[in-house]
């Protein structure tokens, strides 16, 4: 019983961060129909941002969120305005290849400047873990979980309550009609890509104290997030959240009850099955 509880808790904690990254991926897809292969590198940049501000400036990684989230938002806007924005008209396959190029470029620049070494952040409260009800919960991961929920909820209210948020949703539904209603679609694209990048970067900052960081860490994370968004239905935010938690649970329960070695395989097999038989996602909310 305790084993189940333990793996459910760690699955949900990890899943909340998958969900946050996947929400970023899915809003970009929803609005611009871009499958952003470089999304994982944005997470990696967030992780390294937290690492450097901690190592060089002694800033707590969770506090450095205040620096890196806006910085990543600005970076995302820049990428959309000057790079990706010029490609969108070329169609989905072109943007796919273009972001694959961007992903390789960012990861290899990081390799060049920061080398491929594994690094980690040792915060003072990193150990020992909390022990509520006899299960072990890592403190940094618990803080990350709370902040991930806060940020994702914040985004949800931004999209549902503000004018800009409504404009984003309108553009996702139909860019042409949105433009006819007086929405500046190019500006909305920039904001959306900025938001997606900021979410990825923030997730990176939150994950930095809990994972090893190295320049190609994004490769693994982005593939997992493709799994998540497809499970939840591409373009759907609630779907991405549910998919993230689901993948977290599948991984942690799979590691205990199936095999540690094949826990990642379960996720991919699930992914293929959903792609083939329910392309709009498990909850039917996405677009096919």
């Amino acid at each position, binding site marked *: 019983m305790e084993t189940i509880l333990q793996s459910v808790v760690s699955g949900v904690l990890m899943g909340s961060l998958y969900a946050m990254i996947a929400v970023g991926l899915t809003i970009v897809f929803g609005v611009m129909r871009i499958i952003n292969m470089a999304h994982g590198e944005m997470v990696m940049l967030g992780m390294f941002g937290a690492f450097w501000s901690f190592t060089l400036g002694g800033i707590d990684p969770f506090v450095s969120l205040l620096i890196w989230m806006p910085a990543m938002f600005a970076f995302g806007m820049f990428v959309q305005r000057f790079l990706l924005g010029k490609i969108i008209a070329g169609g989905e396959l072109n943007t796919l290849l273009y972001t*694959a190029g961007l992903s390789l470029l960012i990861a290899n620049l990081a390799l060049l400047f920061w080398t491929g070494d594994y690094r980690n952040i040792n915060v003072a409260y990193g150990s020992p873990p909390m022990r509520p009800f006899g299960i072990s919960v890592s403190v940094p991961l618990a803080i990350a979980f709370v902040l991930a929920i806060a940020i994702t909820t914040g985004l949800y209210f931004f999209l549902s309550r503000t004018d800009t948020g409504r404009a984003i949703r309108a553009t996702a539904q139909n860019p042409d009609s949105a433009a006819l209603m007086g929405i500046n679609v190019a500006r909305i694209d920039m904001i959306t890509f900025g938001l997606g990048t900021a979410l990825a970067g923030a997730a990176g900052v939150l994950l930095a104290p809990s994972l090893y960081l190295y320049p190609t860490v994004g490769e693994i994370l982005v593939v997992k997030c493709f799994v998540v968004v497809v499970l939840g239905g591409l373009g759907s935010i609630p779907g991405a959240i549910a998919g993230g938690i689901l993948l977290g649970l599948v991984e942690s329960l799979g590691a205990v009850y199936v095999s540690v070695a094949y826990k990642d395989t379960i996720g991919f097999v699930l992914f293929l099955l959903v792609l083939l038989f329910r392309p709009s996602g498990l909850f039917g909310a996405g677009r096919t």
Partner: protein
Amino acid sequence: MSKNRVIGTLVALALLGAPLATANPFFHHLLIMVLFSTLLGVAWNLLGGYSGQVSFGHSAFLGVGAYATMLLHLKLGWSPWLGLVFGGALAMAVAVPIGLICFRLRGPYFSLATLAVAEIVRLVALNWESLTAGPQGLLITHLPELKLFGQAIDWETKIPFYYVIAVLTLLGMGVTFIVSQSRLGAYLLAVREDIDSAEAAGIDTVRTRVVALALSAALVGMAGGFYALYFRYIDPDAVFSVALSVEMVFIAVVGGIATTGGPIVGAIFLVTISEIFRERFQSGHLIFYGLFMMVIIRYLPEGIWGRLRFLLRLSTQRA
């Protein structure tokens, strides 16, 4: 037709003579890597370029070929060169069910599915330790002797490997040329331009794409066998990596999709730059892959070779 034959002969002669230009082993290694990458680009292009199906999972076929070659030699004592051919056939056989599943999906969804398939294959290779030795990898210490015209081939030098990969690359380009001139090539282009219209015109689009994938996989599988014998060591993270799959895509796209000569131009360009970069710096040698991909997609969507060919045609028309 005769023009093509002249170009083909010239390319073949240039390939034959290239390693004699210098005795520098780095140069030989560079030539081998260029041809190896060309072969990967050529094979990927057959499916990705002509039919527009962007696969991010071709390393699955490379790994299957590499492991087949290694295992047949180490466990059953087959000649590795026979194993290489068999590896190609096995990759082809594996490609058929993968194609039948993944081709139910279109555009980016197909790309994501291939990515997942390759990851599944990698994880299986990593964990099926009784067969693959898992993350430890497989090693061939000594290649069995092979005699050509009564003379034993010296596998300690790089030149014999160069000729092997040159033959395989020419084979790949030959297959591409034949396909591009055939009905299959026309079908593939029709699928790329508009799959629904192709379907309406009576083309069996799934079968067409599966055939192209199988040919492509066979070439990549043989390239994998070559990789195993040239480096004499393979492990799942090396031969099943996403990076290799992506590299194939980049070489074909930068060189020029749906052209016979594009991948060779892309490979010469990208491999030379990245190998020289690798000599100078510790890491990050794929920077230029990313950079050129972005530049090409934005400014030269027909690729370097595609643009050169266009310019050549213009100038001959004027003259």
